[in-house]
């Protein structure tokens, strides 16, 4: 039995400890907001927070997660997260939307560590999140908009 917290709720799962967190979230806990895009830490669709840090859950064996706090897109609640999601909606960032859970998780983590990110900071923090619909212009604009709203 492996125990950890997901979105503030205690969970215990009985799975092969090498199972990536992504599939535990999706297949065992029914939390399907976190997406699968590559399975090798290339695309960021599976990004979650582990103790506040953005992590690629497809490449994170669930054994590593024992005792940790995991936040997924379903559990976002912070002021920063709300500002990010509002900016995303206000600017109509999404197209197919499939990458956007991961984009938002990365953006929230960025703003929580750097409330006023520069374009270079955004390139750095968001470079691991692919969007095949290429919504990057709006992702950048929405991060700046959320930062502005949070500092207002």
């Amino acid at each position, binding site marked *: 039995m492996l125990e950890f917290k997901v979105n503030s709720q205690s969970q215990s799962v009985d799975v*092969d400890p090498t199972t990536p967190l992504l599939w535990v979230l999706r297949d065992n806990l*029914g939390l399907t*907001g976190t997406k699968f895009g590559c399975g090798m830490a290339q695309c960021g669709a599976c990004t979650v927070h582990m103790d506040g840090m953005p992590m690629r859950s497809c490449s994170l064996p669930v054994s590593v997660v024992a005792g940790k706090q995991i936040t997924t897109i379903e559990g976002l609640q912070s002021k920063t997260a709300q500002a990010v999601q509002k900016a995303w909606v206000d600017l109509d960032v999404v197209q197919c*939307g499939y*990458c956007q859970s991961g984009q938002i998780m990365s953006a929230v983590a960025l703003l929580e560590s750097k409330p006023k990110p520069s374009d270079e900071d955004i390139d750095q923090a968001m*470079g691991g999140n692919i969007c*095949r619909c290429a*919504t990057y212009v709006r992702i950048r604009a929405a991060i700046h908009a959320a930062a502005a709203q949070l500092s207002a």
Partner: protein
Amino acid sequence: MRMIDPATAAAIFAADDSATAGLSRRDFLKNTAAVGLVFGLQLAANKKAAAADVGEVAPGAFAPNAFVRIAPDNVVTLVIKHHEMGQGATTGLATILAEELDAELAAVNIEYAPANAALYKNLAFGSQGTGGSTAIANSFEQMRQAGATARSMLVSAAAQRWKVPASSIGVSNGVLRSGAHRATFGELAVAASQQPVPQSVTLKDPSQFKLIGKQQTRRVDSLAKCTGKATYTIDVKLPGLLTAVIERPPAFGAKLISFDARAAKAIKGVTDVVQVAEGVAVVATGMWPAIQGRRALKVQWDGGASGLNTAALYQDYRQRAAGAGGATVTRDPQTAAALASAASRVEAVYEFPYLAHAPMEPLNCVAWLHDGMLETWGAHQFPAFDHALAAKAAGLPMDKVKLHSLISGGSFGRRANAASDFVVEAVNVAKAIGRPVPVRVQRTREDDMRAGWYRPLYVHAVKAGLDAQGDVVGWQHAIVGQSIMAATPMAAGIKDGNDSSSTEGVWPTPYKIPAMTAELHSPTQAVPPLWWRSVGHTHTAFVMETMLDELAHAARQDPVAFRLKLLKDQPRLAGVIRMAADKAGWSSPMPAGKARGFASHYSFDTYVAQVAEVSLKPDGSVRVERVVVAVDCGVSVNPDQIVAQMEGGVGFALAAALYGQIDIAKGTVTQSNFHDYRVLRIDEMPKVDVHIVNSTQAPTGVGEPGVPPLAPAVANAIASLTGHRVRRLPLAGQTFTRA
């Protein structure tokens, strides 16, 4: 109705509408003139029959047509007949319906249409499906009529109830008012459903639009997609749902010799290992045990098409391009003489690789065989294909097959597949398991990347001549590449070997080019080909627009002026060219180390011109800093979504221009995931400035037309900066130095 062979996809188009059977894809896309007629028939259809087919209509609900349902509890449901893959068709169609209905757009409930060609066919194709940037174009009048009909019946019901003239009733945001009277749509639903369906309705004058053309009209799916609540195929939950991954042939055409499932079955969670037409499926209680099981599987294959190498294909195609025997695309007997007597000539050969679509959500589909029927859940972009082929795979009549259409995490053409490969494999696995349990076949990224259905590899060879004044006098063009249409129901549209999906953008051309001859060679290969966002225009625009640019330079003329000279009877294309040049400051100098390139292209009835501003990175590779886009797509239904599609089109096209390349060695695909099939990342995304032509013409598509001009605009900028002409894509691996 003509049925050739109802069991094959080849019958689908022919069976749908004899008026459109046998036409090429281009003709399908063009043939929208019958819209009004088709619609008339549809509206006249019995309203109860229509309601019965649109799914669960609550008792007392008002369902005046197949697109609008209003329940007594005031839930307004709009039925969307097009696949949503990110392009915003849902928002577009909902906007048009809500506009004429005077519903509150943000409050409507969206439902995707079931497979029912009679009600939900694409009026541009005659069959049910989404593609060719037709969603708005074919639906505009139809959705307006549907919305206005429903509104008119609600108004009649209110007039009767309140005993006031209909003309005194105002409607806005889902509420009807007349004097002191007020009622929501829901309160009038039952009464409205008893009104006769009007034979004709008055549509709004565009000056009355509150939603169409308004900047503040937003996407209807943003919130769900920003909170992880949107349901894609990968998210479908059903009791007892199993997950399968398929071990597929390592080389194109390879056949299974044998497999040993013992180790795979020993993995905890693996429930079945079954042979299917696509390979060997490992079925499990979740994705990880399925993947683990597949790793443990021992499979033997034969060599398949082991002689297939892309390096050799380029060589072969170059030879074919230089040789005779191509199909005639267009022929002018004066071409040879015109080129022979030209004052100067430019000759070039161009190479374009296979391209994978690599949509963000790897392909998948859920199939459940139970109680003598089949249900599927999937990104059914082309229900016309998927319905017939799922039924065939299941061995069931079509009326025992129910498709649940879901949004997709991108498609770019991949999910509109005449073989319905990703649907059929799920049905095959469900059948092979032999128990009435639902199963999702989920591809890994590697499965998705390596299974073919690519934009084909193409080679073009062009010779063009100028006279002493710098005017084009002749043009000889050869194109070599697999036919996309040959294996589809549209094969009948290929006349004398001329597949327009290989040649669109070269011929017909909006440019007045004298003495033009073009030929097409369509070799067959073991790699299945497929349309890829903007289809033939992905390569034809590159060749036409870089060659014209080269000719302009040879003629010492400005590339914009040079194009305009050839477009005297093309006011809309000339219009976007002037607009893009003006907005980009085309005639002003660029700072040192940067250059602009120009390209324009007409595709899917939409006109786009782009100016790319590029610089070189220290390592000699290319950085695209800004792209200015001018687009004329007729009436703007959702201006901000047009901007979004242009931005996305630029980014998607730039990914391919910089990196897109599928190589094949000994029949096996070299690339496997995003580390070796690179796509665009945020630090490489240029600024994009989009300008939309104000137009009252009928709306046309925007999903694809933003793609074609990007690569040639970038290549022309590179030529301007370095003097080097780009003749092959991708740019990765090619380094440049400033002239």
